């Protein structure tokens, strides 16, 4: 970690989404969904895998680590299976990564204050490392896209109800000590006309939860493939109303053209800059990473920039994932040293360590 003169990190590095899921772990997860191993065994397997993921991040030099979301079967079901009022008739799966068929036949029970267990997940990771921890969960808009049923005449009401449930969970996470939370909206790019609703729901989730908030919007990483294509224009200006401290976007795969939007719309907060293409097994060089960061610095001050992969490293082989993280850290170090040289007295400004 390189603190600036006020003790803050310059260009802190972090991760997004799921860490690499090795083939053997995929097989064991599927064994669980086919009732061949117990939930207890799977929990223990996950804990061992999370320890390894955190260790990999630490060894790579990542400043802000995560649990790699290794407990989750996919970006949706881990949450839907825990949310009171969401019905999942068939919980066995032929492959762990498949989506459940989830239904909501009656409005979600607002008086049920039971938690989804995310705080316990965070606490497990918190005690594994001295590094700052980022904790992510899927946002209400994307969760709603995998739910059918006629409980709400207006689909936006389902999104809002899910957001209220996630707000409860965010409060639990903050109570457990989480100070950096990220909302992932992997489906939003497929519904560009719904950006305002998604932002409204994000604001419900973050309401009254005093942590650093990040919002991650990508073009999908299901099966290592984009689900949609396009540009981030659809986010603006709606996202300017989001009560978040950081916008985490993918640039490595798509190119840096959309950086102009940050300047054009005067995005006031921080930017999580995707510098690692998670859909390609080709490992970036540190120089390439540094070049991407330098380009972003043309639009965003260093104190407002965080460095991360485009999305989760889930579909990359463990060795490739590790090498990509090392390259990201090395590339960031190059730019940090340049910033130190160029402006030793005023390296950056920022409101806090993360945002």
């Amino acid at each position, binding site marked *: 970690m390189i603190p600036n003169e006020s003790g803050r990190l310059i260009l802190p590095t972090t991760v997004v989404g799921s860490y690499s899921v090795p*083939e053997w772990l995929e*097989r064991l997860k599927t064994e669980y969904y086919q009732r061949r191993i117990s939930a207890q065994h799977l929990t223990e397997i996950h804990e061992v895998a999370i320890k390894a993921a955190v260790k990999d991040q630490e060894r790579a030099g990542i400043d802000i680590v995560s649990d790699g979301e290794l407990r989750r079967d996919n970006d949706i079901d881990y949450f839907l299976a825990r949310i009171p009022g969401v019905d999942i008739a068939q919980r066995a799966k*032929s492959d762990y990564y498949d*989506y459940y068929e989830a239904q909501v036949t009656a409005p979600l029970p607002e008086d049920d204050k039971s938690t989804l267990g995310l705080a316990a997940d965070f606490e497990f990771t918190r005690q594994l490392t001295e590094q700052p921890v980022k904790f992510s969960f899927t946002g209400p808009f994307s969760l709603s896209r995998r739910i059918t049923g006629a409980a709400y005449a207006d689909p936006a009401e389902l999104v809002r109800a899910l957001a209220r449930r996630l707000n409860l969970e965010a409060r639990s996470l903050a109570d457990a000590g989480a100070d950096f939370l990220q909302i992932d909206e992997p489906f939003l790019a497929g519904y560009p006309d719904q950006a305002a609703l998604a932002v409204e729901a994000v604001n419900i989730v973050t309401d009254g939860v005093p942590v650093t908030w990040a919002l991650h919007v990508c073009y999908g990483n*299901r*099966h290592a*493939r*984009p689900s949609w*294509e396009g540009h981030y224009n659809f986010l603006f200006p709606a996202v300017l109303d989001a009560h978040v401290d950081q916008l985490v976007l993918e640039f490595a795969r798509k190119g840096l053209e959309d950086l102009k939007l940050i300047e054009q719309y005067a995005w006031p907060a921080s930017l999580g800059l995707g510098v690692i293409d998670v859909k390609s097994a080709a490992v970036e060089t540190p120089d390439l990473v540094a070049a991407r960061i330098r380009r972003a610095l043309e639009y965003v001050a260093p104190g407002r920039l965080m460095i991360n992969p485009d999305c989760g490293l889930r579909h990359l082989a463990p060795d490739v994932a590790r090498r990509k993280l090392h390259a990201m850290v090395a590339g960031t170090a190059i730019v940090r040293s340049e910033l130190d040289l160029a402006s030793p007295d005023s390296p950056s400004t920022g409101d806090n360590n993360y945002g």
Partner: protein
Amino acid sequence: MRDSAAAQAAFGPMAEALFRSDADLTEMRVVCDWIQYRNNFRDTAMLRPVLAADETPDGYELAVDMRRGARAGADVAAEVTTALADASPGADGDRVWLEPWVPGSASCVWPFNALYWQALAAWEKTTGKTYEQALPGGESDARNAAAARDLILDLFKLWDELANRRALPEELYVLELGVGNGGQARTWLDEFTELDRRHGRDYYRRLHYLMGDYSSHVLDRAREEVAHHGEHVSGLVLEATRLSGSVGFLTGKAFLVYISNVYDNLPSDEVAVIRGRVYLVQVRSFLGGGAADEIAATFGVERADIAPLTSRLLRIGPELLSESVPATFPDTERAVLFWQAVWAALRQAERYVPLEGLDTYRVTPALTGEILRPLLAAEGDVRMHVSNGALSSFTDTLPLLHPFGRVVCHDLFTTGHEQYRTGFFGPGKYDGSTVNWVNGPLLQLFASRRGFDVSFAPFKERPGSNIKTLTAQVRD
């Protein structure tokens, strides 16, 4: 077999030969096959050792082609007795071996297959027939205007929707693999221009139709067929199993990938479950002693020369073989005749080698044998194709698709797990090429793990044929 009295009658002599032999029947499995390929790599009866980890035989499998055993004049007992002799210690048979023990996909039958497509003009000149005439139906499967029209109208509907959302790319790519004589491309493009004219959105201006084929000879014919579509068509010589290296630029851009009769012609291993243990089938190509002597006499060479000459033929082709050994092959045609004689006589011995963990077996460079686990676990004792080449090609094809693109593939597919328990699906010989049915459920499983739905339907354009149409498109 239940429908053939002759085959039933052959069962008795087979059993009698077994009982008369010294074979340990407690270690002997018997498989009754019904091989539908007129030309294949098998004798009527063959013995396959089932090896232990130390490569010593742990048992045997006797495989008998009941179809040939049922023919008038067939002496099944003698064939079985000859095959059982392979179980004797040190037995090597009267054979000219053409290769060491290898997995099926690494066998020399695939270089033979590749040579057929590379030197097709020379082969056709010698036989006097085009390769299409050698196909079962006497023609290629793809040139149906109605089918093309359906696909094109589906594309128009999709493109209209994307255009309305300002999400339609400027370049509209369609890729065809295995172009045959260009008939499919011509039909498709002619229909496209006509339908586009009526539709009025000028999609033809933005269309790029890429034709890919392994054979430059075939591709040249196809280019002539679609010459009137000018710059809208490009021809690429490419290997279907390594698409990412040649058409990687299409990643995420292809709205339609059309594949016709390519996968059945790509290398494949076979795996088997025997008494709950997983084995890889290894093969070893050979010429029977009699056939080898006949070839040696015909071409004025020693029996020992046949294997090295064959190896050289596969490396450099008939034309250069003729140039390098003019005394034996004074012209290309003579070299082609040698090629055809060896090919006709080529047989394969087989053995089962235990696999120590499915993850240690590479199905494709990017895929381990773990992908096979659900299929193998579902069927008990079974032997099935891995369709390595087809899976490799399919693996490379899916990423080419635009998020709303689809693959349409006509080929010989098995469509249910159980088929491998009840039928024989290759390899066989079509003219100079090697053909296996493609493991459809495996492609389906792989696609499912990549978020695609795969469905199979009868090939509408030729009712009653074995060809099926595979369609793959994004599920989630």
